[in-house]
């Protein structure tokens, strides 16, 4: 693999250089036509030449990918290393980008090894900040924790559906295909259309984890979602699908689903899906996004955490359809 890669980048670079040369040739040529006044249809020539030129520029732009950025060694104090939850990672990236826009010298390296890795690396002090999408266990409480956001997932049904509450157990059975008819959970006699998100989606990851669809088999975590479920690639597509099918069930982040009128958010285990209940922790399909440090944060790490918890940082959290850390 390494050799293929190497060959590949080498190839790219050669091509880029060739194309730049080509551009220069064309530019020179263009000038010479203007000066020499050759007896040809000038407009056409110019048009074609500029087309070729644009093509060249576009291609060089596409092909000439910058080499992966090397860590800035001279600004060691200006860099933060973060590792942890794959669910928190996309939000952390957004926050880091906004932070970097204000602090151009800062380097923030974010890796996603999972919540367990994040907590352990924070305890061991091998990273500046650990990320977790679950509450800390008592033995992990030595860490300084900063709740940066709350992730609540709403279960959504078609408004005409008479079912208004499902337990976690019923949800799990619907999504594994053990329950296939609405009458088994108190609705009318019709088949359930199960709608889910694609693998790799953070919302799916949270949903399967919190409803028990993710089962440990040996040292592997297995996703038990039934394979014949309708799979949609975005929160919007899930909501549209549920809005169009009276027998459908789906899930979406609370922030995206709360104001929609063509779907309804149902309660889970008797607890309504509302901001209050998610913050209180009584609504079960929700989880905190935590940033963890070993010691009281100082310097750039402190600046970054302060930024996340500032009004500006929390607005970024809300824009990504998560709930703010606190009301």
């Amino acid at each position: 693999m390494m050799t293929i890669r190497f060959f590949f980048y080498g190839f790219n670079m050669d091509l880029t250089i060739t194309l730049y040369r080509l551009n220069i040739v064309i530019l020179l040529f263009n000038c010479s036509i203007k000066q020499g006044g050759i007896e040809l249809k000038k407009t056409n020539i110019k048009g074609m030449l500029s087309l070729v030129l644009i093509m060249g520029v576009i291609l060089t732009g596409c092909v000439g990918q910058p080499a992966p950025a090397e860590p800035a060694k001279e600004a060691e104090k200006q860099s933060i290393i973060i590792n942890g939850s794959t669910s928190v990672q996309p939000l952390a990236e957004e926050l880091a980008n906004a932070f970097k826009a204000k602090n151009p010298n800062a380097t923030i390296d974010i890796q996603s090894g999972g919540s367990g890795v994040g907590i352990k690396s924070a305890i061991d002090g091998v990273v500046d900040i650990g990320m977790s999408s679950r509450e800390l266990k008592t033995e992990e409480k030595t860490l300084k924790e900063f709740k940066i956001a709350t992730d609540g997932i709403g279960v959504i049904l078609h408004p005409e559906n008479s079912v208004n509450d499902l337990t976690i157990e019923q949800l799990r059975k619907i999504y594994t295909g053990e329950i296939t008819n609405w009458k088994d959970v108190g609705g009318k006699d019709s088949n359930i259309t199960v709608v889910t998100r694609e693998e790799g989606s953070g919302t799916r990851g949270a949903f399967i984890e919190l409803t028990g669809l993710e089962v440990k088999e040996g040292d592997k975590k297995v996703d038990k979602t039934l394979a014949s479920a309708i799979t949609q690639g975005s929160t919007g597509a899930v909501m549209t699908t549920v809005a169009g099918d009276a027998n459908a069930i789906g899930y979406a982040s609370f922030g995206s689903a709360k104001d929609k009128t063509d779907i309804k958010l149902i309660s889970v285990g008797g607890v309504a899906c509302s901001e209050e209940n998610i913050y209180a922790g009584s609504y079960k399909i929700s989880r905190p996004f935590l940033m963890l440090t070993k010691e009281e944060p100082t310097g750039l790490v402190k600046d970054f955490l302060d930024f996340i918890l500032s009004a500006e940082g929390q607005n970024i959290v809300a824009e990504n359809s998560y709930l703010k850390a606190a009301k």
Partner: protein
Amino acid sequence: MKMTERIFEKLLLICAGIAVLGVVLIALFIFAEGWPIIYETGVINFLFGKVWAPTQGLYGIFPMILGSFYVTLGALIIGVPIGLGCAVYLSEIASLKISRVIKPGIELLAGIPSVIYGLYGMTIIVPFIRNVFNNQGFSILAGSIILAIMILPTVINISKDSIEAVPKEYKEGSLALGSSHWQAIIKVILPSARSGIISSVVLGMGRAIGETMAVIMITGNSTAIPKSILSTARTLTGNIGIEMGYASGEHQKALFATGIVLFVFIMGLNLLANLIPKKVGE
């Protein structure tokens, strides 16, 4: 030869070269990114594995190969007879006035963005199937209907050209021997134009397999092996399109590997289209 002429020739050659270079670069890129996963999983396990669970490291794309196959087959079953009928009508029967209306219509059909087809399928075809069959609506059937409409321009245009390329004498000879117009079409014109018609079907097939956006919106994208034409299904293109957003690491490479399979299929179809003899009649 003048200097300017020579420079222009070279410039045009470079333009042509860029097109070929594009194909070569994309092919290299897809293979470099995706091949390691196919190699690790094993070609047989990758192509015929029935479970696609990329976050657990299970990469079997058999359900998607079947999905692509069924959706495309359905599109051909629905689309080819309609397209062929339209081509015969335009080249043999339609008056100038009528074809002046139909031809721009077909051109327009080819120009509609695929996401619009998807939107139409999602809001009209899917609810229609849901009401008629009392199921989830998203299905191979819905995908086939939309793809059938999408391949119509390809089938119609290429078939029409090949029907019009049949020498006039063939038809006149057939009519002179006492056949009706219909008999001439069925027994003489269509068989003579058969290579062009087959090409149109093969190219339509390529279009159907390669379509992504519209198919993602209407087939339901489930990773189970489809049981009937009313089942949901995921196509190879859909697999890449729907999961690319959040995929990283091996998962992403597995999607490139899906791209390799797709690439090979499309290359095969195009080769097939080129192998079909271009001559008329026999």
